[in-house]
Every structure is written in structure tokens, then in C-alpha cells.
């Protein structure tokens, strides 16, 4: 009887420790459409396909994107079928020589990534469920302040509202520094489309403001501020996959920067 009691006690104690169970890799898509075209800057377009990793796995990290200088490239999956379509156009994207990266630039020449345009995404891969998502570019908008060519020390950048945007991303650089700064306006601050800019000792400042649709805003902002016990898929908006299919309308403007003359004196 005593042995049985001890055995039960041990089983109870042992059963209290549980290890993570088997988890199977899932699709991870990152397709961002932008009105600005270029080479993978955060306010530009990209299309990449990959998968999540199971604890204990080792993944190949030797896939380096052509011309890539990032330390941590996208770990992609080759051979997926990525289809973009809107009312008039359906395009199956070609994969680049870099595994998991897909070419968007053929679409740039057709001026199809424009404000208010609606796009659908479909991704197919053996063993994956059918993946569908949709997005709409926010409407066009503009930077309204400062109105002239000069940006004074302590001044703010202000922009008009964009219909269809859940929030905005601001990137700016003091020219010749080569460094960009970044700032979000959150959903509770969507009425506050301005930012005080700190003074630096440079003579030109360039702003890029991106109006982000709901998919992209949730992905960028919530991913930046996520809490560990959140389920990230709550803000990813792709049924059956991790990642994002979103769109951004981008405006840019450059100013002569005048740090010596404070705003109060003008």
C-alpha cells in the first residue's frame, strides 16, 4: 500500500512538468505593395514566401538575397505559386534567384500600385492550404506643414488625412547622415498626424510618410509593440498563414534644414 502511495505521488509530481508538444511548420507570407518602388526599403514593395520554424529545428541561413547587405535575410521557400490580381490584371510572380523572393517590378511599369487600388493575393504550395488575402491602397494625401522649403529647429511635420489608412509611418533622414529615423502614429493617435523633429547639425531633411492600410498597420505597429501572450495571428489578417498582405500610399518631401533659426524667431 505504501509503495502504491509513493508511486502515485511520484506520478503526480512528474505529470506536473510538461514539455512543448510537436508543432508543425506553417506558411509565412510577406507581400507589401507600395506606391513607391525601389529596392526593399521599408516604404517600398516586397514579396517573400517562407515558413515558421519548429523549436529544435535547424534552418538554412545561407540564402542571401542578391545585392543583400542585411545580416539576417529572409529564410524562404522556393517553388510557391504567388498570384496577384485586381479587376483588370492577374499576374503570377516569378521567383528570383534568391529562395523565397518574388519579382514585383514587372508590375511597376503598369502604374498599378496606386492609391485606392484593390488587390487580391493567392499563394499555392504543395502541402499548404489555399491562401487568399485582399488589400486596398489608402487614398492619396500630402504633407501640409511646413508649407515652404525650410524646416526650422523645433518645428513639426504635419500631413493631411488619408481615407482608408488605419495609421501612418514616418521615416525621415538628415541628408548626408545616411541614417533614417522612424515613428508611428498609433490607432488612438490617428487624428494626430504630426511629429516634432529634433534638431541636428545637417542642412537637408527628407521625409517619407506612408499611409498604411489596416493589414499593414496592424502588422507593423502591433508587431513592434506586441505582447508575448498575444496571438500574433490576431493582427496578421491572412487566413491560414503568418505574415502580411498589405498596402501603403507613400508621399515624400525634402526641406532645407535650419537648426540655427528656431521656430520661435520665425
Amino acid at each position, binding site marked *: 500500500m505504501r509503495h502504491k502511495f509513493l508511486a502515485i505521488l511520484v506520478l503526480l509530481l512528474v505529470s506536473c512538468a510538461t514539455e*512543448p508538444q510537436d*508543432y508543425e511548420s506553417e506558411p509565412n507570407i510577406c507581400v507589401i505593395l507600395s506606391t513607391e518602388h525601389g529596392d*526593399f526599403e521599408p516604404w517600398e514593395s516586397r514579396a517573400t514566401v517562407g515558413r515558421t*520554424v519548429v523549436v529544435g529545428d535547424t534552418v538554412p541561413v545561407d540564402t542571401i538575397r542578391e545585392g543583400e547587405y542585411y545580416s539576417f535575410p529572409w*529564410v524562404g521557400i522556393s517553388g510557391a505559386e504567388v498570384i496577384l490580381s485586381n479587376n483588370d490584371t492577374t499576374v503570377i510572380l516569378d521567383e528570383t534567384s534568391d529562395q523565397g523572393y518574388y519579382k514585383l517590378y514587372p508590375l511597376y511599369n503598369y502604374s498599378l500600385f496606386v492609391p485606392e487600388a484593390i488587390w487580391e493575393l493567392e499563394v499555392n504550395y504543395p502541402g499548404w492550404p489555399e491562401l487568399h488575402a485582399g488589400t486596398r491602397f489608402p487614398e492619396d494625401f500630402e504633407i501640409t506643414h511646413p508649407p515652404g522649403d525650410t524646416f526650422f529647429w523645433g518645428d513639426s511635420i504635419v500631413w493631411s488625412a488619408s481615407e482608408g489608412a488605419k495609421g501612418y509611418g514616418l521615416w525621415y533622414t538628415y541628408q548626408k547622415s545616411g541614417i533614417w529615423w522612424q515613428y508611428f502614429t498609433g490607432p488612438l493617435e490617428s487624428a494626430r498626424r504630426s511629429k516634432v523633429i529634433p534638431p541636428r547639425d545637417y542642412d537637408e531633411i527628407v521625409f517619407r510618410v506612408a499611409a498604411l492600410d489596416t493589414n499593414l498597420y496592424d502588422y507593423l505597429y502591433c*508587431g513592434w509593440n506586441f505582447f*508575448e*501572450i498575444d496571438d500574433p495571428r490576431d493582427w496578421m489578417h491572412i487566413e491560414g498563414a503568418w505574415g502580411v498582405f498589405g498596402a501603403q500610399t507613400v508621399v515624400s518631401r525634402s526641406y532645407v534644414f535650419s537648426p540655427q533659426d528656431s521656430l520661435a524667431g520665425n
Partner: protein
Amino acid sequence: FYALAGIPPGTYTLVISMIGYEEERVRLTVTEGQKLRRDFSLETRAVGVEGVEITAVRARFEHEVDVGVEHINIQQQRKLPSLGEEDVFRPLEMLPGVISVSDLTSAFYVRGGSMDQNLVVLDDIPVYYPYHMMGTFSTFITESLRDADLYTGSIPARYGGAVSSVLDIRMRNGSCERITASGELGLITSKLTVEGPLPGKKGSWIVSGRRTYIDALSWLVEEILAPESLSFYSVIEDYVYFTVNNKPFYFPYHFYDIQSNVNIDINDNSRISATGFAGNDEFHHQDSLLEVASTWGNAGVGLKWRCVFSPRLLSVVGVDISRYRGYDEWNEVEFELNEGDTIGYEWDGGESVRGIGVRWGYSWLPGTRHRVNFGADVDYIRCEDDGTGKHGGVTTYFNDDQDSSWLFGLYLDDKWEPAPFWVVEAGLRGEYYNKGYYFRMSPRLGLKRRLTADWALKAGAGMYYQYLYKNYPYNEEEVKLPVSYYGNWVMADSANPPLRSIIGTLGSEYLLSDKGKISLELYCKDLRNIRETCSGQPGQGFSYGTEVLFKYGTSWLGYSYSVVRYRFEDEWFYPLHDSRHNLHVVLNLPFPKGWGLTSTWTLNSGFPYSGVIGFYQYVDHWGREVWYPVYGQKGEFRYPPYHRLDIGVSKRFPLFKKYEGSLYFQVLNVYARANVLLYDDYFDQTSGISSRREITSINFPLPVMGLKVRF
């Protein structure tokens, strides 16, 4: 003051007893209509198995319901081994139904409730954040404390504002005979307590002070020992990502406390007492690139007027002010916003909770079978959260949130002994809270039926509300590690109703040979309107369990089985503080010639955690591909069981013939159990390998020693 009313004429033996004090007996003759007054001053005694004050225990057993109540003699429990510093919360965590989730924090959880759901008061003054070192120690100096009551079940109607438990701590009076002092030199702190009578012996006073020297000690370790070999530091290193003056171990931190109490006898029927406390944690660092100053702590003062109008009517009227404040100043010459680009950065800000309370309470003895308590209280609470951030001298962040509320309470309760072997306590508390215009009624009921002279059954139930609380944390580090002093308090308002709990308890208690007791209690608790930090979603909780306590002398064995479930959306899950089985063994053994042995052994089932089951690649707002964890279901997994053995030895001896000294030596974690505190799952982006490592707390035997002297 104590009053016995309605005594028929005759000759009696009056027995005054209290656990930890010498008993006094006096023979008295009472005549018709006579009002007798006697003042007593009890001498302390070393408490052991022999000569335990059973009179007080039996009196309480026969005349109080005490369902879900534990009375704690703090002077006894001071002997228990603790992490370098006596702590009033550590003995609590040895009781069934009370748990701590980490070796590194003294925050306690009661019957499935979270740490913010406990009201802690010192002489009726609320203490909003009673922890030092972000939770490692409590803010109370045990030398000047007398006792405490922990209410985990039937909370009396005079207490409001807590849905899980009330810890009512009382300071002891100073010596009425002469000025005495006691001091202690410990490994981490030193303390001094001075007490004495007021002039003309019209009262007494007591003052205690404590200061740590962690800053000096860590400097010593850094300069002399090899810090890399101490794995305790590795826990801090992982979560404190900066070095101080390029010294990986030096820690410029300390805390201090002051506690005082003054009692003034105005006349035979009136006494004024004042209690004050203050304490701060401070962290300061300065070098050519960075200056940091952080201060956080509590302060409070309370004034009470006790008045005996007649042997049947006593009153206590009091006012108290309490505040908790955490504050930061940060000045960094080269703050790195982007790689290779820096700018000056300044920050100052903090948060605070302040409260003012006025309390009227009356105790009326209409007959020998009733004790009626009634009264009212008013609390004004103000929360502030402010901060200013500047880049290059330009304000880039500004926040100034303020919130305040009023809470009015009325209460009435009656302890009634309708027949021999019966005790009934029924109470009702009504509250009005102005933010959201909440009017709440909070009934409480307790019953005790003694079946024999030594065996009783008891039951209790109550409904409770809380208006200042915290949301359910979003990660385990926040509750397991001492890394945050921010309270993140939330006030109930029209959108966020107050927390509500309903607690029911059934129990049985048996006195053993007048030296101990066995008690068994079953409870269930329903919790509503809790909220989650990240989503702000409302939710509910439910807990139930069984507690067994076997107490003999000053040693005990406590076991509890409990289940806690929370729900914020559709799925129930086990929260961070759910522990299925908990076993505590406490030994407090006196030996001849002033020797004493204390030992504690704790065994807990593992706590739940949301395990990392994978990683996903995320593209951030800079276009960088970074890896984040994929979590399983909330609370799906469990850490391994926790167990630890601590042993302490003490020796009392005369010092310079007229003083009393006591030397103590303790070893924590005698068999070097490596209890897992957290798992660190990470993905190495350069190698592509994902792996897990264990982060343990104290995984080596830790010696603690000190010297106490009484003058």
C-alpha cells in the same frame, strides 16, 4: 483596550494571555454596578514547544469563527530562514493557500487571487506597494511589529477594497518601563530599534530603522571574488542589459525603512496613537556617458483616537495618509537611436498612488452574547503617471495622466453566540464609488459549531469588491523577476467595473492536546471583471481547493491542493500563479542553553507557462527580418516541481553580562536544488539553430548569518 461587560457580582480569576508573552493571572472581586479598570504589561517569552500559550489559542477557538483566518505572531516567525533578511511575508507563504511564484519576489498569492488583490495595512494605513527591490523583500521591519491577521476567507465587514485577502499588520507598543534598544547586523541589512516610555509613563514609543548595503557588498564581491562563478548573478545579467562603470557585478542600489509608533494615554478612557512609516529604494549611477537616478517607495502616517465611552461601547476614529511613488531620471549623452547615430536623451517621470482615508469604527457589547461592530470610512485615491522625454533638448514625449476617485463605505457586523458551542458572525458592507457611480452591497457570513470541546465545524461566505487593481500581466518576467517597480494600477470607472469576488469556505478544526491543532478547509472563489494588460479584455477567474494545516507548537505542516482557471476570451487557461500541490514543512525547535534550530522545506507543483513551440520570421518597420517566438496555448505547459530546504541555527548568549546577544547562521537551498525560474527559448539567426536553456534562481547553498543584540 479590552472590555468585559455584564459580569455578575462575584470573585473571578482574570487571565491575560497572548501568544509569545508571559501569562498574567489576577484575582478580582466584582460588585454590583462597579466599573473596574486594570492595566497590564506582559513580558515577552521565548516561545517553544513547552509552555505554549494555549489559553489564548483556546479562547480564540471557542469564541471566534476564524474561517479562512490565520493569526501570525510575527516575533515567533522571525526565526524562520529567509533570503538574507527577515520578512513578514515569508512565513505567510508557508501557510496552505498562500504561495509565492518565485524565490526572487515576496509578493504573495492567496487562494487563486493575484498579488494586487491583497489589501495590506499597517495599523489601518493602506500600503500600496509593500515590496522592496522590486518585490524581493517586504517593506516592514519585523522588530517593531506585533502580530498580523491574514484573512483569506471570511473577511470582516470593516475591510473593503480587496477581493482576495486582507493582511492586517499591527505594530507593537514600545516598552512602558524603560528605554531599550536592539540591533542587528546581517549579511544584507542592519537594523536598529529603540523604544521606551513617554515622560510620566503616559504612553510609549518605538522607532525602527533599517538600511541595506547591497551597493557596498556588491562592490566588495566585484573587487575580491569572481562574479562569473555566481550563477545567481546570471539571472540578473540576462535581464539587466547594462553594466555599471564597466563592472558587471557592482550594483549601486540600496533601500531603507523607518517605522514608528507612539501611544499617548490622554486619560483612563482615551488614547491617541500615531503610526508612521517611510521607505525608499534608490538606484544611482553616474559616469561620463550616463546618469541614472531611480527612487521608489512608500510613506504613510496614521492617527487614531481610541475612546472607551463605557464598558459596552468603544470607538476608534482615525485618519491616514499613504502614498507610493516611483520616479526615474535618465540623462544619456549619446543615446543610440540608429546604428552609428547618437543624440542626447533625457527622461524624467514616474507614477504614484496616493490615498487619504478617514475611518470611524465602534464596538458595542449589548450583551454577553453579542459584539456589534459598525462604522464608516471614506477614501480618496489619486493615481498619477507622468513623463517627459527629450531628444537633443527637444521634447519628443510628454505624458501627464491623472485620475482620482472617492470610495465611501458603511459597515455593520455582529458576532453572536446564540447558544453554547455556536458562534455566528454576520456582516454587511455598503460601498459607493464615484467613478462610474457604483453602489455595491457586500454581505459576509461565518458560522462555527463546536461538536466537542476540541473539535469544531465552520463555514463562511462573502462577496467582495475592489476598485484599484492591476491587469493580468502579459509576461512571466513581470511577476517572477524583480525587474519593475511600476505598479501599473488601474482605477475602476464606468467602462471598467470594479473587481468582484465571491468566496465560500467549509472547514473543520481540531485542537490537539492544548499544544496544536489540525485544520481542514475547502474553498471556492469566483472572480469577475478582471482584465488583461495587452488586450484590455474583461474576464473571469475561478479557483477551488483544499487546505490542511497541522500545527504543533511553533512548527507546522501545511498542504494545499488548488486549481485556478482564468478566462479572457473563450478559452479557460491556467494563469501564472496556479500550482496544483503545495507542501510546506516548518520546524521551530528550541534546545537547551539558548540554542535553536529552524528549518523549512517547500514542495510546489510547477507553475504554468505559455511555452515557445516555434519561431516565425517578421519584417519590421525597417525592413529587417527578425525572428519572434510562436507560443502554444496560454498556460499549456508546466515548469518542473519546485522544492527547497532551508536550515538555520541560532544561539542566544549574554553579552557583556547585561545585554542579550543572538548569533544566527542559515543555509538556504541546502541540497542545491536548481529550481527552474524561466525558460529562455531563442533562435540564433546566424546559425539557424533554435534551442532552449533553463534559467534557475538560487541553485547553490546560500549561507546567511547575522548578529542580534538587545540592550
